[in-house]
């Protein structure tokens, strides 16, 4: 747990960065939006993987589902979804401003709630699995979801579908907050901020501690009377909610949705969220945030300068992280600067003898 002062400076930095970066780096607004989305990826994955010790390769399904559901709601609010997909979407249909700005929040709400419900149901089935079985099972779900989405024709099947575009007024983009790019950047940033504060609260409650207890010794937790399933599933519901909304936002930023590369991107985003959290330090509140930042920087670097070899570079990075920095940046920091964490290396406590006072 970072000391309060350090945490306050961290929060201030994030807010400053969030507000100023689109102004300072307008050409990178998409990457910046992606950065906040990545932070949501990593922070929510951390609930299962970091805090609870359940490594999930399937959290992406909530992202993908949220993406499709949000877009579908946005479209279906004004038009017929099947017709939209058949006629190439934005090429034929145009949303008015009022249709757009009612459809979108509706879509985001559904994108949050439906995955949360599904997490509740699915979780009760598969959160009984442990360790690598859980990991591989969620991998299976992640990939199967993408494959089956490929066959849903109302969503455009393998071709995917387009997402409604930012409404125009008299041929110009509607000037609300400076246009669609700024609007969705703001949404991404706000989503991240709400995720962060929700998780910060969650981890400060008994709920958060029980997640850690489950990680350290699930059998003991049960033996002490804790109904672990309840906590596992509820944690997943939280993740699903934020991931779903993230999906809805990302679909709008990307402009189109493709089942296995964009929505249920298990082999990319699904794995990135794991890597970012490990890179930053799993189990901590700030680890995923730092990890997402560092990862996004590396990724942009690789994709720009190593195009064609970027996956090789990524694979190499994964191996380096996993072999040499399994505790991540936060873990490394903890070793070097325990004072930042309010931890005092107490050798006195280590050397103390056990003393039972029989007069007690």
């Amino acid at each position, binding site marked *: 747990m970072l000391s309060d002062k350090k945490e306050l400076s961290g929060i201030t930095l994030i807010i400053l960065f969030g507000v100023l970066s689109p102004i300072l780096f307008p050409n990178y607004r998409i990457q910046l939006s992606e950065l906040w989305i990545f932070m949501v990826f990593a922070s929510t994955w951390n609930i299962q993987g970091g805090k609870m010790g359940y490594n999930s390769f399937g959290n992406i399904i909530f992202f993908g589902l949220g993406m499709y559901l949000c877009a579908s709601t946005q479209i279906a609010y004004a038009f017929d979804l099947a017709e939209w997909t058949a006629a190439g979407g934005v090429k034929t249909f145009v949303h008015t401003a009022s249709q757009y700005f009612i459809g979108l929040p509706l879509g985001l709400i559904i994108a949050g709630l439906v995955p949360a419900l599904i997490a509740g149901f699915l979780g009760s089935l598969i959160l009984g699995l442990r360790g690598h079985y859980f990991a591989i099972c969620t991998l299976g779900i992640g990939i199967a979801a993408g494959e089956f989405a490929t066959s849903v024709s109302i969503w455009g099947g393998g071709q995917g579908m387009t997402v409604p575009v930012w409404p125009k007024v008299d041929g110009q983009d509607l000037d609300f907050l400076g246009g669609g790019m700024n609007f969705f950047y703001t949404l991404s940033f706000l989503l991240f901020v709400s995720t962060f504060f929700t998780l910060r609260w*969650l981890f*400060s*409650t*008994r*709920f958060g*501690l*029980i997640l*850690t*207890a489950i*990680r*350290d*010794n699930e*059998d*003991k*937790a*049960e*033996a*002490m*009377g*804790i*109904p*672990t399933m*309840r*906590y596992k599933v*509820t944690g997943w519901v939280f993740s699903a909610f934020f991931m779903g909304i993230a999906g809805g936002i990302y679909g709008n930023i990307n402009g189109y949705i493709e089942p296995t590369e964009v929505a249920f991107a298990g082999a990319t985003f699904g794995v990135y969220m794991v890597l970012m959290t490990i890179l930053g330090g799993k189990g901590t509140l700030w680890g995923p945030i730092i990890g997402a930042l560092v990862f996004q920087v590396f990724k942009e670097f690789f994709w720009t300068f190593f195009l064609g070899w970027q996956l090789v570079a990524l694979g190499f990075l994964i191996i380096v992280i996993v072999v040499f920095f399994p505790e991540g940046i936060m873990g490394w920091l903890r070793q070097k600067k325990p004072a930042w964490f309010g931890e005092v290396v*107490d050798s*006195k*406590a*280590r050397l*103390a*003898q*056990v*003393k*039972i*006072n*029989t007069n*007690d």
Partner: protein
Amino acid sequence: MTNILEVNNVSKFFGGVKANEDISLNIKQGSIVGLIGPNGSGKTTLFNSIVGTHPIDKGSIKFEGQELSTMLVDKIATLGLLRTFQQTKIYGQMSCMMNMKISKKVSNDYSRIFDKLPKELDEEAEQILSFVGLYEKRNLRAGELSFGQQKLLELAMALMNKPKMLMLDEPTAGINPTLINGIIDRLIKINDKYKITLFVIEHNMRVVMNLAQHIFCMAHGKMLANGKPAEIKNDKRVIDAYLGAH
């Protein structure tokens, strides 16, 4: 004196192995009862059967009149029946204080799971840690404690949960011999002051004889003998079971 625990004709098989065969015993509320027997006699299996770690194949187990054999582990624990483990189970990455605070018995209703841990817990945790002698080590990670110290932590965590009955699996194994008298003193106090019934598996005969008011002896999965410590000490069958177990 009522029976707080009634075990009737319990059997548990693992494939062809009869780990527990037709075990019956009663434990009076407020008493300290010992369970002895050579290695492999089925003592820990019996413990596991009682607290629901595995289902039993035959028989019935009643705790305060409630049938346990169909209940799951966490439900049984909420009834007030706790056990400690032979191979200690603690939350290794968390501090001793955290281990304690998490062990407090609270409601797991959805309306309560997001409550914060109250400040008063700290004081209660420190008190109990002090009681078992771990006060100085309270901020260390539980995983850094020695095996014997972890046993004490487990005892403390169980006390934090305020059980009605505590089943201890070899509580003094791995503990510094000079500390054992302290442990015996603590266990007697727990039973006397907090009125917690104790059911203790032990290999250390000195401990059992000084602690238990009644002793059950198992061998080869079956109940061999039971009685007061003095009777058991001189019981030929018990002596043979231990000597013959080589």
